């Protein structure tokens, strides 16, 4: 772990300090009108509700991971596709310019 040990104390301190400062700034969001509005309306999300009663125990443990694979995997695939398309378009444009 020689790469991790390199100045790790000062670097960790810097990372934590920046993170704490940003976090404190984020906490001030609760003073905004937006936060007040949501608090007045009340909030509850439907996760873990009645819909889960009818599914098997195994599925109850597996489904959250399936949801993660979908939520991470589909944007990953789409981003790769977009990057390939951009590379292909760039190649076509540069070839047309030369031609």
């Amino acid at each position, binding site marked *: 772990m020689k790469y991790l040990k390199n100045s790790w104390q000062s670097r960790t301190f810097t990372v934590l300090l920046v993170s704490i400062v940003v976090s404190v700034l*984020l*906490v001030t969001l609760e003073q905004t009108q937006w936060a007040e509005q949501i*608090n007045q309306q*009340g909030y*509850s999300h439907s*996760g*873990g509700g009645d819909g889960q009663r009818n599914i098997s125990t195994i599925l*109850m443990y597996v489904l*959250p991971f399936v949801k993660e694979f979908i939520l991470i995997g589909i944007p990953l*695939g789409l981003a790769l596709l977009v990057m390939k398309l951009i590379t292909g378009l760039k190649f076509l444009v540069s070839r047309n310019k030369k031609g």
Partner: protein
Amino acid sequence: MSDWKENLHKTRYVMDVLLLFSFMLISAPQSTGIAAHEWLSLFFVVPLVIHLLLHWDWIKKSFLRLFTRIQGKERFSIIWNYLLYLLMLTVFVSGFLVSVALLPALNIDLNIQGFWSKIHHDSATLIMPMLGVHLALYWSWIVKLSKQMLKKKVQV
């Protein structure tokens, strides 16, 4: 596989795999239970900080690189990574502010606000597609390192 600690890229790869697995574990509170979700999230700080430390050079240079002539992909990647870090902090902060197991266990009582519950739920959902794009941006590196690591494994 045994030499991964001596190679920066392999160290990053192993630590990133651990980071991804721990992220997926803490992102499924319905499977782990809320208490485990909150305690594991606290320990998730360790692989996350390790990830940042192993990319220290990138962190130092990336901001200034935004103001130079760089490729669109790199510019997008830098901004995306900053947003991902900000969103990760949002998930953390909101998560602590809606804690029902961790903070009460530490004798810290909080009045849980609907605002933070909404922020935590929404940011935790949004971070997954953002992570997907983050992985896509470094996909060629991931594929290259995966091949290298697997090749080593077969030779052993």
